[in-house]
């Protein structure tokens, strides 16, 4: 009967705990009346309390239930079974003790039994719980008095302050109660131990000791450690062990796994890829040197007064050099490795690869000179190169498209690995957008703006992002040495990216005079982008699952991980920026600049570096020093954060000043410290590129360190041949 009562009480309490906040919530809503939007804060608080209470009550419910069950079992007399279980689980030393005691007992008498009583701790526990009741009624009262004033900040703060002790009280209650329950459980365990001891004492000697003794020998069994090897000394007859370090020393730089030696790839192809990487690294260094200088100009506008170096001319030099020079060449270089590899065949034409390289380099060199000389296409971002220059780029990319499709056409695998979907699609789309952006037929007046929005966003999303995803789909699983988590998620991401991304270009011109419906489509598309981004991120993260420990031992995986994190955060930030409400204070400010660096740098650059550090040692057999790779990684990451976070804060404030109608020049003054931080972050990023360039050089450089063994051997050979001659 007693037990029944307890469980009934527990259920009642549970119900009260669960529903009390709910009833208060209902009260709030009915009393507050009209200002619904201002209630969100209250609602959130109420939900928090509700959740905490729910978790607390569930926790207590299960604890109580467990105990009640235990008591019930005891009543039903399951104890003997339980004791037998204990007996089976004794370890060797315990058995030994028992056996010893049994031995002694042979000469001695019997032990007595102790009576058992059911403690009423449970009642205490629940009474305690009910003493906390006033806490809840207090809460109810505050809920009642605050009615009608929810929109007032002071009231909200007050309620929050009241909530804190209540929540703390609930937490305290859980802790106390669970302590009490534990004490009770311990006491019961002690009682049980008493009984068990009695039980042990009553065991009849012969059969029990025999089984126990048998059990003891079984537990004491141990291998002697030479069952397989026998008595022979270990000898590495097949040369499986190499690079033996006999002396231990402190590692100042964490020792990471070395790149594995791979089947040699065609030296001709290898040379081509190396050239792509080399040119890419050059353009990164060049482009970001320009970028760094531009960042300085925000702080020191009179750093120079030369027309070729003025801000308006250099800005597109920076963006175009890192876009078409660095990122594009880097991607294509990795593409030349990946496309034939996953097709299990040779590249269709190495010659075409060289032509592409020459054409793109020519485009960036000419484009840069034209821009600095003041010849540009008219100011649309990333469309500043005039058409003859962009034609060179497009021609190069078309050659590579043909090259890749021919390679895939003669593939030796049945399926087309998903990397090739992404890579080929990216190239097709890049050509499409370039053609659409440079054909003049639809570019008069506002037509230019509509095309511009489409072009600039497809440029980043369909060329850089899609291509880079293709790279990740191959190199990430390969570096983790496990298959990609889900092929179908990759396919989903592929098609949804095409579907949604194509629509979102005009979100760069929200509130401008382009058609309202087109802006709305772009915003909806931006929200749709959540699907491919989530699918992609999930896929990559789940591929890491169970292999997280590999990050610590690899110098490429950290780059991949950072890329994945920014892929998620940067892309979703893009969605958030597209809304009309956020456009009010973010559009036209440096927030866009911060966003483009979070994505183009955080995603694209980190993935490209990861790829190059993974692929280049396979081509040359040489790795870069770990310390400089580490320096590159950390400087780039910290620099990026220093660059973007202050810029985001400053530009949000600036947007708000505009909304408040403050004089424009005040918003310029306000930005000064944030621009300084940007320049500092930019300097760190730039420094990291010096390390990157050095690493590339180390991976390419032919002058190896002298291998004493090799040289000694050569000398020996020389000597012996000389000796032979003398003989």
């Amino acid at each position, binding site marked *: 009967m007693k037990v029944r009562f307890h469980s009934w009480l527990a259920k009642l309490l549970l119900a009260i705990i669960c529903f009390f906040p709910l009833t208060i919530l209902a009260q709030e809503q009915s009393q507050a009346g009209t200002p619904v939007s201002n209630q969100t804060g209250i609602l959130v608080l109420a939900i928090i309390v509700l959740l905490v209470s729910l978790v607390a009550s569930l926790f207590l419910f299960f604890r109580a239930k467990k105990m009640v069950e235990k008591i019930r079992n005891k009543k039903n007399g399951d104890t003997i079974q339980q004791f037998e279980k204990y007996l089976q689980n004794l370890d060797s030393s315990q058995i030994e003790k028992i056996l010893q005691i049994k031995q002694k007992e042979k000469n001695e008498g019997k032990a007595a039994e102790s009576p058992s009583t059911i403690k009423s701790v449970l009642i205490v526990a629940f009474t305690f719980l009910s003493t906390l009741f006033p806490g809840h009624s207090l809460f109810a009262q505050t809920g009642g008095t605050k009615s009608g004033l929810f929109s007032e900040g002071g009231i909200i703060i007050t309620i929050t302050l009241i909530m804190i002790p209540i929540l703390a009280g609930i937490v305290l209650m859980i802790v106390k109660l669970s302590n009490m329950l534990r004490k009770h459980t311990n006491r019961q365990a002690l009682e049980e131990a008493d009984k068990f001891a009695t039980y042990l004492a009553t065991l009849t000697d012969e059969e029990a000791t025999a089984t126990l003794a048998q059990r003891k020998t079984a537990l004491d069994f141990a291998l002697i450690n030479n069952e397989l090897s026998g008595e022979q000394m270990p000898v590495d007859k097949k040369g499986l062990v190499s690079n033996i370090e006999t002396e231990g020393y402190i590692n100042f730089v964490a020792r990471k796994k070395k790149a594995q030696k791979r089947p040699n790839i065609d030296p001709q192809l290898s040379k081509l890829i190396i050239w792509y990487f080399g040119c890419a690294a050059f353009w990164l260094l060049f482009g970001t040197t320009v970028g760094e200088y531009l960042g300085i100009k925000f702080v020191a506008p009179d750093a120079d007064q030369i027309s070729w170096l003025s801000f308006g001319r250099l800005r597109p030099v920076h963006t175009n050099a890192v876009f078409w020079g660095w990122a594009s060449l880097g991607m294509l270089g990795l593409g030349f490795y990946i496309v034939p590899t996953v097709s299990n065949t040779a590249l269709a034409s190495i010659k075409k690869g060289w032509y592409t390289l020459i054409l793109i380099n020519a485009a960036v060199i000419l484009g840069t000179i034209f821009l600095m000389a003041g010849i540009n296409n008219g100011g*649309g971002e990333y469309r500043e190169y005039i058409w003859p220059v962009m034609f060179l780029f497009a021609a190069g990319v078309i050659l590579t498209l043909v090259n890749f499709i021919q390679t895939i056409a003669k593939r030796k695998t049945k*399926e087309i690995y998903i990397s090739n979907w992404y890579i080929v699609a990216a190239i097709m789309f890049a050509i499409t957008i370039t053609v659409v952006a440079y054909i003049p037929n639809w570019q008069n007046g506002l037509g230019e703006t509509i095309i511009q929005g489409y072009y600039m966003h497809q440029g980043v999303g369909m060329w850089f992002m899609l291509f880079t995803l293709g790279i990740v789909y191959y190199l990430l699983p390969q570096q983790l040495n496990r298959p990609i988590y889900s092929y179908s998620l990759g396919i989903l991401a592929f098609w949804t990216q095409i579907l949604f991304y194509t629509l979102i270009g005009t979100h*760069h011109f929200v509130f401008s005079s382009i058609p309202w419906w087109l802006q709305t489509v772009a915003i909806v598309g931006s929200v749709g982008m959540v699907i491919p981004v989530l699918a992609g991120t999930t896929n990559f993260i789940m591929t890491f699952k169970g292999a997280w420990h590999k990050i610590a031992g690899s110098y490429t995986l950290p780059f991949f991980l950072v890329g994945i994190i920014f892929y998620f955060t940067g892309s979703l930030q893009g969605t958030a920026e597209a809304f009309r409400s956020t456009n009010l204070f973010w559009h036209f400010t*440096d927030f866009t600049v911060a966003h483009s660096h979070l994505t183009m740098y955080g995603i694209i650059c980190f993935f490209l570096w990861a790829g190059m550090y993974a692929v280049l040692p396979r081509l040359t057999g040489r790795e870069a020093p770990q310390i400089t790779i580490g320096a590159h990684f950390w400087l780039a990451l910290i620099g990026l954060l220093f660059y973007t976070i202050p810029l985001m804060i400053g530009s949000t404030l600036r947007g708000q000043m505009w909304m408040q109608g*403050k*004089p424009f020049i005040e918003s310029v003054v306000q930005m000064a410290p944030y621009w300084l931080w940007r320049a500092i972050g930019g300097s760190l990023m730039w420094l990291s590129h010096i390390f990157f360039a050095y690493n590339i050089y180390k991976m390419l450089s032919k002058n190896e360190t002298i291998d004493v063994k090799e040289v000694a051997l050569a000398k020996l050979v020389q000597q012996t041949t000389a000796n032979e001659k003398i003989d």
Partner: protein
Amino acid sequence: MEFFNNHKKLFWTAFLLFAGLTVLVAILPALNNQKNNKPLPGAEPLSAAAVKGKNIYIANGCVACHTQQVRNIDMDKVWGSRPGIPADYAAIKRTDLWRNTATLMGTERTGPDLTDIGNSQPSRDWNLVHLYNPRIVVKESIMPAYPWLFTFKKEPSKNDVIVNVPKEYLNGREGKIVATKDALNLIAYLQSLKQTKLPDGTPSPEFLYKRKQAALGTATKTKELDGAALYIANCQSCHQPNGEGLAGAFPPLKGSPVVTGDNLELYVDIIMNGYDARPEYGAMAGVGTNANLSAAEVTAIINYERTSWGNNAKKVTEEEIKKIIDFVKLKAQ
């Protein structure tokens, strides 16, 4: 699946999906817009000098920091009297064989919007000084200086346009800074940037996301408008934060008889309709009319000017200023 293993089918599908969407969201809307929008009847085509000036504007990448679009939201009201409409851009065609159409709408507002700069800052003298080095007139500016649009002459001829550059910006040279044709063309372009009035009877599109006036309205009734902020926004770039103007270009307001005197009619007339009576200084545009300042705002500016930098004149009331504004408006017509 057979489809996924056939590169022709796979890649053609992806391409067609992308190309189809491209046509729908980019090409067709673009074609539609260029077909259906004509320039406003009141729109003036660019002069020959302004066309050349626009090319200078494009070449130097001014669009990197300056937008030319008034969005249909309340916060953009400072950049024009009405939101931009497609017709505002309809006259802009391909620049030449090599270069694309330049609507120059921009995506970044590091500097101010220039849609209506021809109205809000029409002064050639100010623009020339500002171009030579923006920090001469706006100390906090981070805009680049454009000295290559100017030449240095020891003895300028009569036809040369001399720029009033203060001594400390001449680096000890003796002579004058003279504007080149490029600089004058660029300013001709800037001066041509004016929002065209909508034809009579055409309703202007609304500014959305209005600032909440309810709380503000009650505050303004009891408190004066912030004259200092209005001064910064409308007057400071010429007359400077210290009210001392710029020798040879913009007259001082500190100790000025117009500012501290009793001839309010002249004072208000200058603010509303501009002034060019003194040859030693540049001409002033009708700042008040261009910026559509209200009587309350003009009063706030006047009171700020009459009581700052050591000026110590009696404050004026909104009522008397309102009367004078109505009067000088009639005079201007």
